[in-house]
């Protein structure tokens, strides 16, 4: 009896702590938004930035500075820390690096004009030139590196266990991740690519699955970057899938695109609708991959931030009674979405690759 009540008490305590924790952490970024509109605070947290903003203390932002690396034709690379802007985001603090002067306006770096200032068009957008190439270690790049380190660390240690214990039963993290690895192999790769050909694509499928999953999970931490909710990141994954699909495409695959079987000849060579549709399909498939992951993760972040944002819109702690548990519930949902989106991305990649390496068979 005591055990049960103790256990219940512990769960209730944990749950309470979790909610309080979420409330505190979710609340921190919101303070930064008090000055601007609430929607801009949400967008600020979804978009990339040059430094890792942690918290505002007495309206003074505290952030981790990250290196800014800019390349301009003629003047070469300019490297400085993002702290040089002193949290300025309105183009007021010029940073001189090399032969150039830079200004930061709404998380974008511009080259200063002759007056050392920004020029605005009628719509209020700066018309200044931007650096030719921006290779800064932004918040997203930083979190991508962190995700890569975590993924590498986890799987290299798991691999060392396999090397040490061979075919013995798995233990620890190994037993946690082995079913997931087997899931990727047996439920994603083999059914869609085939038993003979799947092995070649396993490194990519496993890497993309775990990288996306870990990045999704990491993105749920308050203050973390919205890595998989960034279109450049999802573009990269989708583009790699695109390259793998088309470079491993066999005769059957290309024949299916340009000479689709079962279609009247005049739709192929007379009015080439089918080849055009199929050719566009080569690009729409990875495009859908890119948008799906980006939209799902970003939407989840927007919902959670908006729910928390309600407290500050209404300027009442009472709203928190409703919105904090709701945001907590959404976070649990996002934990599920984190896995599902990693799964969907990998599954669809496997299906596209499977379609490209499939051998001709009778229709």
């Amino acid at each position: 009896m005591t055990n049960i009540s103790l256990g219940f008490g512990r769960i209730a305590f944990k749950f309470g702590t979790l909610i309080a924790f979420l409330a505190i952490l979710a609340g921190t970024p919101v303070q930064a938004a008090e000055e601007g509109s609430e929607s801009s605070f949400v967008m600020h947290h979804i978009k990339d930035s040059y430094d890792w903003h942690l918290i505002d203390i007495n309206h003074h932002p505290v952030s981790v500075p990250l290196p800014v690396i800019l390349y301009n034709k003629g003047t070469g690379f300019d490297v400085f820390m993002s702290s040089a802007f002193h949290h300025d985001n309105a183009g007021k603090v010029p940073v001189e690096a090399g032969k150039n002067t830079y200004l930061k306006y709404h998380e974008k770096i511009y080259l200063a004009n002759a007056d050392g200032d920004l020029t605005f068009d009628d719509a209020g957008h700066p018309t200044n030139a931007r650096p030719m190439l921006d290779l800064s270690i932004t918040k997203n790049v930083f979190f991508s590196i962190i995700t890569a380190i975590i993924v590498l660390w986890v799987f290299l240690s798991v691999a060392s266990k396999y090397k040490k214990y061979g075919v013995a039963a798995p233990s620890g993290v190994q037993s946690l991740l082995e079913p997931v690895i087997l899931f990727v192999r047996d439920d994603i790769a083999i059914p869609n690519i085939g038993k003979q050909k799947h092995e070649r694509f396993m490194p990519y499928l496993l890497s993309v699955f775990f990288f996306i999953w870990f990045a999704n999970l990491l993105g749920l931490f308050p203050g973390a970057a919205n890595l998989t909710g960034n279109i450049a990141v999802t573009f990269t994954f989708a583009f790699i899938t695109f390259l793998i699909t088309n470079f491993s495409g066999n005769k059957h695959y290309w024949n299916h695109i340009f000479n689709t079987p079962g279609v009247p000849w005049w739709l192929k060579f007379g009015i080439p609708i089918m080849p055009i549709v199929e050719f566009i399909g080569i690009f729409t498939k990875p495009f859908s991959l890119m948008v799906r992951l980006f939209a799902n993760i970003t939407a989840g972040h927007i919902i959670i931030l908006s729910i928390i944002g309600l407290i500050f819109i209404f300027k009442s702690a009472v709203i928190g009674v409703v919105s904090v548990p709701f945001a907590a519930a959404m976070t649990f949902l996002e934990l599920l979405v984190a896995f599902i989106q990693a799964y969907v991305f990998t599954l669809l990649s496997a299906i596209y690759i499977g379609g490209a390496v499939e051998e001709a068979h009778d229709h």
Partner: protein
Amino acid sequence: MELIIPEAGLIIWQVIIFVLVVFILGKFAWKPILAALKARENSIEQALQSAEQARQEMEKLQANNEKLIREAKEERDQMLKDAAGIANQIKEEARDEASKITEKMIEDARSTIETEKKAALSEIKNQVAELSLQISEKLLRKNLEDDKSQKALIDEYVKEVKLN
């Protein structure tokens, strides 16, 4: 709008980072992990196969054993049957023999008895004859001791002769 325009710098970094991850994990993690998983699956499959084989062999052995037992039982039954038959035959034969011997013995005894009886009878006859001779001699002697009786006898004989 900015949200859906990919930044070139981030793409470049992401490609570098991700390709590195795929390369390192592919070489040092996925390869040994998948190999170990495959090896484990193979060993499990082998174990299952050998277990199945063992089971089949067991079954075969059991079937053999049953067959052997059945055969042994049949043989035993046959042997018992045969033995009973032989025993019966022996008994029968013994009985026949015994009765034959008995009959023969009885026959022999009977003939012996007959012979003995004949011998005894002839002996008795001889003795009776001898005895009668002796008695008649004694009687004759006694009766013919005096003349008178001799005469009487002669007379009698004479009488008899006359009669005849």
